[in-house]
C-alpha cells in the first residue's frame, strides 16, 4: 500500500459509484418494457457504462491525473453550510414558507461564515441588518412587484 493517498481512494470510490450507476442504468434500459421506449436510453447507457468502467479502472490503476479530490479540512468547512442548505431546501422552505425560511438561512449562513468576532454586538447588529435588507428587497421584488409564486406554507 505504498504511496496510497486519500485522493486515490476518493477517486476509486467516486468512479466506482458512477460505474455502478452506469451498469444499473444499462441493466434497466435492456430489461424494461416496452423496448421501443428504451431504444435511445440503451444506446446512451451502453456508452455511459463503458466510459464509467474505463474511468473506474483508470482510478484503480492510479492513472487518474485530473481532480484533486476533497481535503478533510475543506469538507469540515463546507459541512455546516451544506447542512443548513439541505435543511432549508428539503424541509424548511415547504414547512415554513420561502421568505421566512430563506431569511433564517441567510442569517445563519452569514453569521456562521462571518470572519468577524461572534462576541461583538456590533457585528451581530450588522448581520441582522443585512438579513432584514435581504428580506425586504426580496419580498418587495418578488411578492409585491413581480407577484411570483414561492413556496408558501405556515408563514409567508
Amino acid at each position: 500500500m505504498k504511496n496510497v493517498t486519500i485522493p486515490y481512494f476518493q477517486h476509486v470510490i467516486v468512479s466506482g459509484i458512477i460505474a455502478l450507476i452506469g451498469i444499473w442504468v444499462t441493466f434497466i434500459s435492456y430489461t424494461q418494457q416496452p423496448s421501443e421506449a428504451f431504444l435511445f436510453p440503451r444506446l446512451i447507457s451502453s456508452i455511459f457504462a463503458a466510459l464509467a468502467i474505463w474511468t473506474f479502472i483508470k482510478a484503480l490503476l492510479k492513472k487518474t491525473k485530473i481532480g484533486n479530490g476533497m481535503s478533510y479540512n475543506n469538507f469540515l468547512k463546507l459541512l455546516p453550510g451544506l447542512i443548513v442548505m439541505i435543511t432549508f431546501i428539503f424541509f424548511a422552505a415547504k414547512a415554513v414558507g420561502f421568505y421566512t425560511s430563506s431569511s433564517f438561512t441567510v442569517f445563519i449562513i452569514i453569521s456562521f461564515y462571518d470572519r468577524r468576532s461572534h462576541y461583538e454586538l456590533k457585528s451581530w447588529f450588522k448581520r441582522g441588518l443585512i438579513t432584514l435588507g435581504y428580506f425586504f428587497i426580496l419580498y418587495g421584488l418578488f411578492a409585491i412587484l413581480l407577484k411570483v409564486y414561492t413556496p408558501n406554507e405556515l408563514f409567508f
Partner: protein
Amino acid sequence: MEFLFYFGDVFSPISFALLVLGTVGGLILGATPGLSPTMAVALLIPFTFHLQPVQGLILLGAAYTSTVAGGAVSAILLKIPGAPANIATTLDGHAMAKQGKGARALQLSFLASAIGGVFGVLLLIFLTPVLAQWALAFGPSHLFWLAILGVTIIGSLDSNSLVKGLLSGCIGLWLATIGFDDIMGAQRFIFHSSLSGGINIIAALIGLFAIPQVLMMFSKGRSFDDLVVVEVEKHSIISSVYELFSRIRALVIGTFTGSIIGLIPGVGGQIAGLVAYDQTKKFSPERSKFGKGHSEGIIAAESANNAMVGPSLVPLLTLSIPGSPTAAVLLGGLLIHGIFPGTDLFDNHPDVAWTFINSMLIGQILMCLFGLYVAGLAARVAQVPNNVMAAIVLALAVFGSYSVQSSMGDVYVMASLGIMMYFLERFGFSAAPLVLGLILGPIAEANFIQGNMIAQASDGLFNYFFLGPLNLILISIVILSILYSALMEIRSLYSQKKEEI
C-alpha cells in the same frame, strides 16, 4: 438586410429599459468574482417568465454581453478576474492600475470590448441567415449527429479529461431521458415522484451552475482575502480612443481571434482572451512590456473575449449547438419560451430573432458607455464577502427553480444536481458537457427515433445513419474532435513526464 426592419423594436420603451437593466446589472454581476456569466444568465432566466419572449431574450443577451465585459473591472481594480474570460486582462490591467493608470485601463478595456463585440455581432447578423437556410437540408439523421456533435465537442474541448468530459455528456444525455417517453408514454427511470415530469432544464441549469459556486464559497470557511480596490483617477476618454487606434494591431488580432474561436462550438471566452493575448505578444515589437502594464495586452484580451460572444450564438441560433456554456443556458431560455433555433426561428419568429440580435448590437455600445460610469460601483459590489454572496445566491437559486412550474420537485432536483456536480467537479468532471447533454438529449432522441422509423421503411439503419456526405462529414468532425483532445492529453502527459525526468 432583413435585420434593419426590426431595429426600431429595440427602442420600444420596455425593450430598451430591459436592455439598459440587463447591461448595467450584467456589468455589476460580471465584476463580482464567483458569479460567472453562465451562472448570472441561469439565475436571470426565471425573471423572464413574465416577459414576452423577445423581451426575455433581450434581458438575457444584454446580461451575457456585459457580464463578460464587467469581469474586466475586478480584473483591473482587484486583480481577480470576474469570469474565466478575463484572466488575460488581469496580467496587464492590474499592473496598469497599480501604476495609477486604472481609469485608462478601464477605458481601453470597455472601448476594445465594444469594438470586438460589435464586430462579433455583425458576424452573427451576416452568417446566421445563410447557415439557417443551409440547415434546411438537414434530415433526422443529420440532426441526431449534430446533437451528438454538440455534446462531444464540448465534452472533449471544455474538459481537462477527455473520458470524463464525454462521460459527463453521457450522464447529461441519460438524465434527459428521465420521465415519460414521448411516443409510447412509458415511464423511464422515475425513481421519485418529483422526476415524473422529467428533469426541468432551467432548474437543472441553476443547480449545476449556481449550487457548486455556493458550496465552493462555503468550503473557504471564514477566511476570505481582503480585496483592495485600486483607486481610479480621472483620465480623458479622447486620449484613450486615440491610444486604442494607435494600438490597432492588438485590436485586430484580438477581434479576429475572438470571432474565430467563438464560431467553434465548445471553446469559451477564456481561451479567446488567452490566445489573443499570446498572439498579440508574439507579433508585438514591445513584447518585453507585456505583463507589466502594457495597453496592448488589455486591448487584445478584451476585444477577443467580447468578439467571441456574437459568433458563439451562430451555431446556437442555426443548428441548436451552443458555442459556449453561457450560450447553452441561452438555449434553455429560448426553449422555455417555445422558440426553437434554426429555420423555425428565422421563418416563424423573425421579429424575435432580429430584435434580439439587434439588441446585442446596441447592447455593446451601451455596455461601453455605462461601463465607464459604473466601473467604480461595480468594483465596490465585487467586495461583497463570500458569506453574504453565498447566502443570496442560494436563496435566488431556490426561488428561480421553484418559479419555473411552482413545484418543490424542481427545487429538489436543482439541489440534488448541484450538490452532485460540486463533488464531481472535485474529481475532474465538468458541468458544461452535462448541461449540453441535458439540453440536446431530447433533440437527439426525437431525431434518432424518427430516423429509425425512416430507416426501417427504406434502406436500413446503417445506410441511413452512417452513409451520405452530410452524415459522413458530421461523424468525421465528431471523431476528429475526440482524436484532437486525446492527442492534446497525450502531449500534455508526455511533457509532464519529460519535466519530471
